[in-house]
């Protein structure tokens, strides 16, 4: 291996107050990432650049793209921006995250059940009922309907961030239709093809069993006799930005990808229209919002919906994942109460903390927030994808004033949060050099018989220097996320096979006109020194 003069990591400066995932304050690799950093330095910047070019070609070829609006306003496909430097988590870090998430999701699930049934947490005076019913995602039509198996949040993806103190915090819950898992799987596959050398010296836990986990969970909640569940994935259609993921998951699970026109409800039973007549559907993994699923119960102008679906759901003939009405649990105003939910429903202390958050409906908190607007982050409660987020330290005086006015007008529609200095990770910034960029983490959990979480998740990275907005719609990229295996993996490790000798196979033949001679010669070569 020839030595290169330029190293990818040089003059690496971690921003003030942030923690870097792979390097310590002095710029030395953290122990768990040492082999990775050494390999990167050895390969040099040219290798990173070359791999980047191959990545773009392969992604364009495979159609792993997303649409961006060009300067001329025309939309065009770009290869999904996968950064070639993985983010690495230790087994111990992952154990904490995994336990914390499982706990949180169990509480959120209990909350959804509670909201539509007993209202215990509201009666206990912990979460105000008026707040819950005023959420736009509160689904009156499913009041009193218990989802099959008592599971509402089948698929969830909570966004985690890590502050300068090294602690993990939950920034947002997402228990409606979180997307991004397809990139987790595609990123890993691409990394093994583009940069196989990086894996040397690390034992990275596999992620490719996610489709099986999901399918198992969807089958587990199906109101069908064992083994006969017909599961479908319902997409709004090819124009949806996440259509790639819908098709990917359907393909990986081997289930039908359906649109509204494929589904029909007769006598409170849901069917697909097939070439051999109507076929009963047991579980629908839907990737569209409550509002659109049934024009008879929700938005009457929805053309994407299936009339009568809610009726079938109420009758218990079909399971819908995630269940209708889960949106109340991931509303940004309800988020504040999640630690209390964990204590109330589970009797446990939260393992993962919230980011300190202020509700602006409360007058005292609002006054304080408006006074400190320059240091805080303000988010609209019912938006997603980074829309309408106000970041105090980066806002001009005029922007601050405008935001203060908005808050005074409609205090209920905003929350304010302390600014978390997102941790950074070395990221390729063109010309093969690495620089720190801010990252978050979205692990994906599946809740069927039990909660299973795929090791790692989607690491999103803000590609612009200093930016903390990681959403891919706003210039974010992603990284392959490694969870290292220290041998104590437990739940998801492949079973250890007994070391065994391979069976004796007959020799491989080489034949043809000059077969015999060739075969002997070749056999000699094959068994000779290699």
């Amino acid at each position: 291996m020839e030595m290169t003069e330029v190293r990818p990591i040089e003059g690496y400066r971690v921003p003030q107050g942030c923690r870097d995932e792979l390097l310590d304050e002095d710029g030395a690799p953290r122990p768990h990432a040492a082999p990775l950093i050494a390999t990167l330095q050895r390969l040099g910047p040219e290798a990173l650049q070359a791999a980047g070019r191959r990545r773009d070609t392969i992604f364009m070829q495979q159609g792993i793209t997303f649409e961006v609006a060009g300067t001329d306003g025309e939309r065009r496909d770009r290869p999904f921006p996968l950064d070639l430097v993985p983010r690495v988590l230790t087994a111990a870090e992952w154990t904490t995250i995994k336990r914390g998430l499982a706990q949180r999701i169990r509480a959120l699930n209990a909350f959804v059940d509670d909201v539509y049934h007993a209202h215990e947490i509201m009666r206990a005076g912990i979460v105000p009922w008026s707040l819950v019913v005023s959420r736009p995602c509160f689904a009156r039509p499913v009041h009193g309907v218990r989802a099959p198996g008592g599971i509402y949040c089948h698929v969830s993806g909570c966004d985690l961030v890590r502050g300068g103190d090294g602690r993990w915090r939950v920034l947002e819950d997402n228990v409606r239709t979180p997307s991004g898992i397809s990139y987790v799987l595609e990123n890993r596959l691409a990394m093994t093809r583009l940069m196989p050398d990086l894996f040397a010296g690390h034992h990275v836990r596999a992620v490719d069993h996610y489709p099986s986990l999901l399918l198992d969970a969807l089958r587990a909640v199906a109101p069908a006799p064992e083994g006969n569940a017909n599961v479908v994935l319902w997409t709004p259609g090819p124009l949806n930005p996440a259509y790639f993921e819908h098709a990917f998951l359907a393909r990986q699970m081997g289930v039908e990808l359906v649109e509204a026109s494929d589904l029909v409800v007769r006598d409170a039973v849901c069917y697909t229209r097939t070439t051999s007549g109507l076929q009963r559907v047991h579980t629908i993994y839907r990737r569209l919002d409550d509002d659109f699923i049934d024009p008879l119960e929700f938005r009457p102008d929805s053309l994407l919906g299936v009339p009568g679906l809610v009726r079938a759901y109420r009758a218990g003939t079909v399971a819908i994942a995630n269940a209708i009405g889960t949106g109340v649990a991931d509303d940004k105003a309800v988020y504040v109460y999640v630690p209390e939910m964990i204590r109330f429903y589970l009797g446990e202390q939260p393992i993962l903390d919230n980011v300190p958050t202020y509700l602006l409906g409360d007058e005292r908190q609002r006054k304080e927030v408006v006074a400190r607007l320059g240091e805080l982050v303000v988010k609209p409660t019912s938006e997603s994808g980074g829309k309408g987020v106000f970041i105090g330290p980066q806002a001009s005086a005029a922007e601050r004033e405008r935001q203060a006015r908005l808050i005074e007008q409609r205090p209920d529609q905003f929350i304010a949060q302390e600014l978390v200095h997102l941790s950074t990770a070395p990221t390729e910034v063109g010309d093969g050099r690495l620089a720190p960029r801010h990252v978050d983490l979205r692990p994906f959990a599946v809740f069927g018989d039990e909660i299973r979480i795929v090791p790692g998740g989607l690491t999103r990275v803000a590609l612009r220097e200093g930016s903390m907005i990681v959403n891919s719609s706003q210039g974010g990229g992603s990284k392959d996320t490694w969870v290292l295996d220290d041998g104590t993996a437990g739940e998801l490790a492949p079973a250890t096979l007994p070391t065994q000798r391979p069976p004796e196979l007959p020799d491989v033949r080489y034949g043809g006109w000059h077969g015999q001679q060739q075969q002997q010669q070749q056999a000699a070569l094959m068994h000779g020194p290699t």
Partner: protein
Amino acid sequence: MLARIAQELFWLGRDLTRAEHTARMLDGAFHADVGVAPGERGMALSWEGVLVIIGAKPAAPGEEEVQSAPVAQAPGRGEVARLLTLDTETPASIVSCVARARERGRTLRDVISTEMWEALNSSHLALGRYDLQEALRTGPYSVFQEVKERCALFWGLVDRTMLRDEGRSFLEAGGRIEEADMVLRMLRVAVPGEPSDGGHESEALALLRAVGGSQAYRRAVRVGPTLGAVARFLLYDGAYPGSVASSVQALVGALSTADPQPRSSPPVLRLERLIADLELQRRTDDARGKLDDTLARVQTELELVDRDIDDRYFTIAGLAAVHL
């Protein structure tokens, strides 16, 4: 047709299919290799397993003591990739397979279509273009991809441009017997002798990927990929074109077309018995423990078919070669 021509066509089909399956297998092994702790993976797609499949076998259990120069370490990614991908000295490597196929094609230019020849020749030239060291350093995924695509192109051209005559039947027979053999080899190495339940999912996924059948499996089989279910799929499922059952069926079809008297052809008769036997096994085989026996038996049978084909159609060619 000339026995020599028939035999060369038969082996042309075999060489190309071997190249394609080697590429698929290495791609699967590469993917399985990264990120899995040593010892966690069984034989399925370890690099040692790959070597066994491709016929560079380590010592059998009994031979270990008498082996004079024991292998110091299990072969690793770099070494196996070098051997089996672009090493012209190794007869089992992808380039060697393609080179042999192209040499055969050169002597068959009057029989095969010009487009087929050009596809063969350009495959050979394209592989020669790769810088060996560079490809190995950056991961030879692109090489595997190219091999797969070029093989598909060749078989597509066979379909479009070659007369449906005896020659084509031998070409296809070669391709199908090789495919059945490669899949059987992979299965025999991957499926553990002692049945055990659970786990193995990543093992099973790697196996599917190494054959190129993940998606077909997901659509066809309603249970998650366990080693047993995947092995059954690859062995029995007639709807999947790469399964042993499909290959054997196509092989008997090709030979029956080529042979003027298929009813008295030993390979055809043997294959028909094998097909019936496979079908019987598929319907009765519930105990997982028997699977490795079945695999061994099918492979032995297929070896006999191979000899029968030699005897019935090519022996004359072989004799002639000796006398040359």
